[in-house]
């Protein structure tokens, strides 16, 4: 089916969030084995064309995104300025991204400050999600990053986060402490 490439392109274009191969397969009513080559062809075509936007792999799916070099120009389009994240918000996000599932107490121990307000803001912005309750006394809530977090930073999945070891390379002292790797949390739901 020659038009599969066209159909896949239209689906990705019209969707308001990244589409995974699974989702495309269901929508196009074609096996993944046929969807995959179509997507790969599109990826190549857009990479080669050097247009104003390209096909990006993000949050476990595919989405058209503008090229980053044009950022200063494109900002002129948006009426409101994009929300800038505070240091507190980014620190909290960083801790949760790497340590998920993380409890509020763990986050506050690491940051040394109350983080309830920051976490609420991040939850409201749909960058965090509640993963359930931890099996320890008091059963505290556990938090993780959401799919929208991946979309925000253009990450394919949590493995796309820079490993903290890469940071360690810059600073030998850190290598001594336990290496932390982003734990891959499967998130079928958000």
């Amino acid at each position, binding site marked *: 089916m020659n038009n599969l490439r066209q159909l896949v392109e239209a689906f990705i274009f019209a969707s*308001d969030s990244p589409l995974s191969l699974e989702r495309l397969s269901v929508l196009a009513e074609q096996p993944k084995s046929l969807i995959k080559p179509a997507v790969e062809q599109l990826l190549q075509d857009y990479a080669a064309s050097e247009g104003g*936007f390209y096909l990006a792999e993000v949050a476990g799916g595919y989405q058209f995104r503008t090229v980053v070099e044009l950022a200063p120009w494109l900002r002129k389009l948006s009426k409101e300025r994009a929300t*800038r994240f505070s240091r507190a918000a980014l620190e909290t*996000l960083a801790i949760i991204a790497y340590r998920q599932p993380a409890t509020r107490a763990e986050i506050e121990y690491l940051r040394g400050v109350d983080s309830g307000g920051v976490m609420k803001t991040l939850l409201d912005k749909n960058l965090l999600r509640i993963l359930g309750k931890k099996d320890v006394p008091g059963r505290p809530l556990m938090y993780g990053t959401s799919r929208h977090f991946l979309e925000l930073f253009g990450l394919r999945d949590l493995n796309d986060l820079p490993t*903290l070891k890469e*940071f360690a390379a810059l600073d030998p002292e850190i290598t001594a402490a336990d290496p932390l790797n982003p734990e891959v949390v499967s998130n079928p739901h958000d």
Partner: protein
Amino acid sequence: MAIQVRLENFSGPLDLLLHLIKSHEMDISDIRIVEITEQYLTIIEQMQQLDLDTAGEFLLMAATLIYIKSRMLLPVSDDIEEEEEDPRAELVKRLLEYQRYKDVAELFQQLPQLERDIFIGQFQASDFFAGDSAENEVPIGIYQLADAFHQLLKEQPVETFHEVIRESLSVAVYIDNIVEKLTQNKRLSFREIFTAKFSRNELIVTFLATLELVKMHVVNIEQVGDFSEIWLALTIPPDQVSRISLVEDLLGYE
């Protein structure tokens, strides 16, 4: 050396501490604790108009530093079998770990961000999504669910709420409350279980909860003489307390 430091520029006590360690060219894993404590305290003294919450967090760190300093000053006796842990060890670990996340936070700041550096198509799907606007839709998640309920309750006047919804004071919840109090206080008088603010219904449910706890052999009741104070105490170790909530379903109360 006069230090010009504005606390607002630091996201917390660890951040400030890291700054001091760097500016004094110290090795994180070998902090000169006397020097750093002095520096830290000088800065804390300078902050006068900080709100209490933030100040508390910075003061807590000050206390930790002073404690470590005092431990470091204690003479190390030779005849201990085990090598004593460096009093700074935990702080060093926290600092190293915090340093990592601080670096990641900086990296996040530099990554291209959606709607700041990168944009997605704003295709209007209205052509074929008849009467189904994505605008009105919200992502689903536990938070969104709890938030929806929370918002509804906030909009609801509490008085009228009671007229329709059945009384939902839960014995189980009050059992938890009592157990929580007892975990903190080892032993409480019967009187202390009740708060003056309690409504009639709350008093009743609290009393029922107390009886339940006695029946479950979780709480022990003692009275030394006639009409003397009645004392309540936990009969099980506090760390097993969390399992009590499981009993909830077994209670006959609705």
